[in-house]
């Protein structure tokens, strides 16, 4: 069981002349919250798309639960809960139809938990997805990402552009997921204060390369100046600069 949940090795990806990822190596062990931080366009989403198998590795390798997500999408995706900033849920579906559709794919779907989440998030089962606000859509996406208690929860900028209450729900969901023993969260965001609230481990990605990857406490210790414990924001600026 010591095998990492995510093992990325020497991953490189180019889009035309742009190098989105350059020899990225990253191991995410089981359990805990991994914060993936970086500026917009740094390569966070590209890395996450490789983890989900939506992009093929040009060179290097990606393994999730020891499997290649491109060669075995069913084996990998059935164990991952995923919520992205895009959140492209089908607008024509009602909330109850979305739940009914999604549960078919996951044998571990927990009806009681799904209903609990629906009530917590105040989602009307008869409401069409396209009529929901952006925050409500994010909640609906979170519901179907959590209701089968995935082994790995991948959140790609989930709270971007959302109000503080929805962001609180998302952070709550992360904490709830890790409360289930052995589960892992990969949380990408450029909102560093959010990552700082929940992450155990932070990986900083800058222009397609891993600039820094360490447990949050260790990062704070190494960047400490006297008695002043730096925030993640300050550590980020120290490494990347303000530009």
């Amino acid at each position, binding site marked *: 069981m010591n095998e990492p949940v995510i093992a990325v090795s020497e991953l490189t990806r180019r889009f035309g002349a742009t190098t989105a990822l350059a020899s990225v190596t990253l191991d995410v062990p089981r359990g805990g919250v991994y914060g993936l931080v970086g500026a917009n366009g740094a390569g966070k989403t590209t890395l996450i798309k490789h983890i989900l*198998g*939506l992009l093929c590795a040009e060179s290097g390798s990606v393994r999730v639960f020891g499997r290649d997500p491109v*060669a075995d999408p069913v084996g990998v995706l059935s164990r991952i809960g995923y919520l992205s900033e895009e959140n492209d849920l089908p607008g024509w579906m009602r909330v109850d139809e979305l*739940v009914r*559709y999604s549960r*078919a*794919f996951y044998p571990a779907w927990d009806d009681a938990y799904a209903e609990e989440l629906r009530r917590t998030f105040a989602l009307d089962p008869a409401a069409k997805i396209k009529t929901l606000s952006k925050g409500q859509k994010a909640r609906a996406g979170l519901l179907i990402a959590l209701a089968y208690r995935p082994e790995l929860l991948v959140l790609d900028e989930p709270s971007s552009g959302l109000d503080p209450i929805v962001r609180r729900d998302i952070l709550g969901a992360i904490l709830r997921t890790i409360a289930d023993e052995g589960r892992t969260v990969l949380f990408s965001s450029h909102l560093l204060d959010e990552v700082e609230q929940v992450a155990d481990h932070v990986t900083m990605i800058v222009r397609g390369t891993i600039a820094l990857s360490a447990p949050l406490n260790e990062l704070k210790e190494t960047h400490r100046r006297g008695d002043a414990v730096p925030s993640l924001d300050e550590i980020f600026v120290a490494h990347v600069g303000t530009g």
Partner: protein
Amino acid sequence: MRSPAAAIAWEFHRRHRWGMLALLAYLAVLAAIKVVVGHPVDFESEQTFALVVVVPMTATFLYFLGVFSFGLSGDLAARQSMYPARMFTLPVTTAALAGWPMLFGAAAMAVLWFATRFLAIWPSDKVVPMFWPALLAASLLAWTQALTWMPYPLPGLRVAVTMLWLGTFDAIVLIALEKKTPEPVMLAFLAPHVPIAYVAARWAVVRARRGETGTQGHRAARWRRGTLAYPTPARAQAWLEWRQHGRSLPLMVAILLPLELLLLFAFSEAPSIIFEILTVALLTPPAMAAFVAATVSGRVTPFLATRPMTSASLIGAKLKVAMWSTVIAWILVLAAIPIALRLSGTMPVVAGWAHDAVRILGLPRAVTLALLALALLVASTWKQLVQSLYIGMSGREWLVKASVFATLAILSVVLPVAHWLVQNRKAMAMLWNLFPWIAAVFIGVKLAVAVWIAGKLYDRGLVRRRTLIGAALGWDALVLALYALLAWSVPTLLFRAYFLVLVAMLAVPLVRLAAAPLALDWNRHR
């Protein structure tokens, strides 16, 4: 860019510059030919003229319809307006949103006509009108824009309404042409259409901008399904496909069919027209399927791409739902036609034809041929729905556009050549003798590509060996069954046995269907 008009024009130019360049190149060639020839000529046949001028220009006209109505990137069968929603948030009046694309489109149509009018070499016996075809093209585009930008209460209604309205409009123009209506009268008839269509288009964009989908009056029709679980992911996916695309074809057929069959009441005394009406009714499902096909092979969103299903299973759901759509559409046709024949009093005419067929062919052969024709129509409807999946599922816009261009280019050559062949007995006889060799080459290519695709499907783990073997055996069985039917029903004097085997092997689809999961996999894991 300093104005909304310039920005909208730039977008059309940027997205379609290659098509426009191809058109300019073609017009330059036409102009060069005219300069070299220098005078009106007598074409050998109308088909030669069609090959050089009519087919490419008609293709360009249709292309312009798609471009300026934003129809190339929208869902024709959807209820929502096809006007791009991203443009609704621009700080621009609705009048400008509707007006500029209409004005640019009308200008493009006018340029297309005048370029054809002045650059092409026309047959010397034709009187070529000056202005009204430009106005006709602009009017047809304006109405297409108004009708495609309008939100509708039902999926598929857009296609039916647009086809009916444009069909009626075309019919009026054809009647006017038949009666040799002078140009001023044609201009007077056509002149009000662009302004009226503009008012309709503006209203359509107002409604679309307000977020209306035309469904407000239909809430009562919705029915709740409770929380019953789908037993398998495949069933859930099939449900999604059905809700997204499955209902469009039966709905379109249900809307068009009664209107077509109503004509039986008007022409109950004219057997030839009854035959034409029934032919049109029987061709409605495959024809409508061609329209629906674009939506079936629509965009693969990240939501769909991250479903824990294999690409083959995702395609399987599409194929299955296409089959249900086909079956339901044909049930409607087969139920509606006898009812319409009986109510319109035209049943005896059709029964007379059936008796004649039985007398000439014998009962078993007549029934078999009728069933075979029906099976071919049903299969062709399903094939229309799914045969372009391998292009759409690739998710590459360049491939979609290239395939449209390639199809138009091939059609613009094949149709006139086929017409010439039909009229040239010597060439026809030679082609007939060569057919087995040509067919053998096509079958060789088909099987070679199929084997390559099967290898790729297996290598990528998309299908298991057992599935591949099963599919190959299934294809063999279908070919054999079709051959057996053909051999039994077609007189052997007309065709040799190997000829029928070749036809059966060419007719049963293989490559394009097998390529669909591969294309989706290519799209899903870029």
